[in-house]
């Protein structure tokens, strides 16, 4: 009878729930690790920046291939969440796509790669170079037409990143701006949203991660990367350390890492993963 079936199902669902609660593995940072000899086992949880997440997922997979009893779980949520979860113990390792701030010095940073930020415009836009002052003027609204900077007549559509993002903070820091000064026409969240916005609008200008932009431009997406301070934008310039707008991609832990976490961080910083890093369009750290 569906009525009894209903009641039974409710009871069953509640029972399952209770059983589940009773035998949950506990908070996600359980490290039931066992390092007898070189045989590693256990589970690591990483949370933080969505920029680094795909890279760490790949590195995690490679690590799991070498140590079949290990599980590396990568979650997203933003750099600040990485810091918060690391401090509260919800995550074993945090992923932060910038250098640590002054009030974050209680954490230990371990850079695994480098990235840069570049200005992008649409491919059809004849403008191919902008001085720092022009960029500031465009972003604060004093220049609002492309013909004032050597392009064709047309309103400039300024694309800015949402508050709190590491990319935004780096951009503002380099150009000595406050977010309140910026007069944006479109505000975006993730890098690809920025690229798609600029690629769909010949009058747009924006800034995104260099690796992402370079990769997409190579795939034929109609964007062009502008040089900053005369230095052409590209992962090559970032690798050589010449590019002014660069940032480290960090793994952070609360204390000095031991056991599984230490082994994993060491793996992530070794040359074994350099090709993985390059595939995600970031720049490996020169050892």
């Amino acid at each position, binding site marked *: 009878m569906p009525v009894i079936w209903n009641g039974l199902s409710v009871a069953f669902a509640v029972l399952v729930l209770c059983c589940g609660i009773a035998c949950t593995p506990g908070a996600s940072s359980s490290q039931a690790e066992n390092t007898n000899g070189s045989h590693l086992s256990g589970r690591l949880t990483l949370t933080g920046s969505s920029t680094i997440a795909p890279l760490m997922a790949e590195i995690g997979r490679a690590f799991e291939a070498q140590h079949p009893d290990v599980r590396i779980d990568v979650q997203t949520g933003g*750099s600040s969440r990485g810091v*918060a979860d690391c401090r509260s113990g919800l995550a074993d390792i945090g992923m932060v796509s910038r250098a640590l701030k002054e009030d974050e010095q209680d954490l230990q940073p371990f850079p695994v790669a480098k990235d840069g930020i570049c200005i992008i415009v649409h491919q059809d836009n004849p403008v191919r170079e902008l001085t720092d002052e022009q960029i500031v003027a465009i972003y604060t609204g004093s220049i609002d037409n492309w013909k004032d900077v050597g392009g064709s007549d047309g309103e400039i559509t300024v694309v800015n990143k949402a508050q709190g993002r590491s990319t935004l903070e780096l951009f503002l820091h380099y150009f000595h701006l406050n977010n309140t000064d910026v007069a*944006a026409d*479109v*505000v975006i969240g993730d890098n690809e949203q920025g690229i798609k916005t600029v690629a*769909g*609008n010949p009058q*747009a200008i924006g800034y995104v991660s260099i690796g992402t932009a370079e990769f997409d431009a190579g795939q034929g997406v109609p964007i062009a990367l502008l040089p900053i301070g005369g230095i052409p934008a590209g992962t090559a310039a970032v690798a050589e350390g010449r590019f002014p707008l660069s940032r480290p991609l960090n793994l952070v832990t609360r204390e000095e890492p031991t056991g599984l976490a230490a082994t994993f961080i060491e793996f992530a910083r070794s040359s074994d993963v350099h090709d993985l890093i390059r595939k995600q369009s970031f720049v490996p750290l020169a050892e």
Partner: protein
Amino acid sequence: MLVRLLRLCAGLSAMIVLVIVAFLVRESLPAWRSVGLARFVTDASWHPAPDASEGTFNLLPMIVGTLLTTAGAVLLAGPLGIASALFCRYYAPPMLARPYRMMIELLAGIPSVVYGFWGLVVLVPIIAGIAQPGASLLAGILILSLMILPTIALVADAAIGSVPQESLQAAAALGLSRWGTMAGVVLPAARSGLLTAVILATMRALGETMAVLMVCGNVVQLPGSLFAPVRTLTANIALEMAYAMGDHRSALFVSGLLLMGLVALLVAAAEIASRTRPSLRQA
């Protein structure tokens, strides 16, 4: 026995909301204390900071953004959805009606990410060709109405389909035209179902996050025209929650509470409206 079991179910369902509201209230308390109600509408702009004294917390432009996008979407999708349901029930030949309904069911399940993505790469450039920046209130309204259309169409379809045969026969006996039957008999009889459809759709539109995030432009301002970018409360939470700390985070929960308040208001208004209208079935 049966009633007791059913009450257990209903009680559990009702409790979920209480837990969520309790959670929201708890998380938003710091903001109520340090920022205060007045500042949420009188501050100069929305540039929040983890410390209430350093930032500005004006929610008004985003409230307006939410209301405008939702209202526009419902005004656009409501008539279209009902027309679609009428088409499916009364105009479409049998071979067409079933695939059409399947198509609408499919539209209902397409993720908001896909709608947002399509909006970003197809719709926004088209609008940008008319007026910059392209990502605008109009784009948000169009995408939202596309998203809620299937909800309205499907629920309206079920409602219209349950109008009793006798009513239609009576209308035919009276010599009413097709439109006369639909306007005078079918739609009023299905009124409660149609209202449900519109309410469900409005609530979906209010709570939509991903799609509006991608196409609305996300600039915190009162829109001067249909082509101006706006930011909705939901998009704001999605954009900033991951990076918000302290009072900023609490302020975002305040906007979450505000959204729920808006929904509650809507529902109350709908209930009052449905209670005062005379019923079709009169003794």
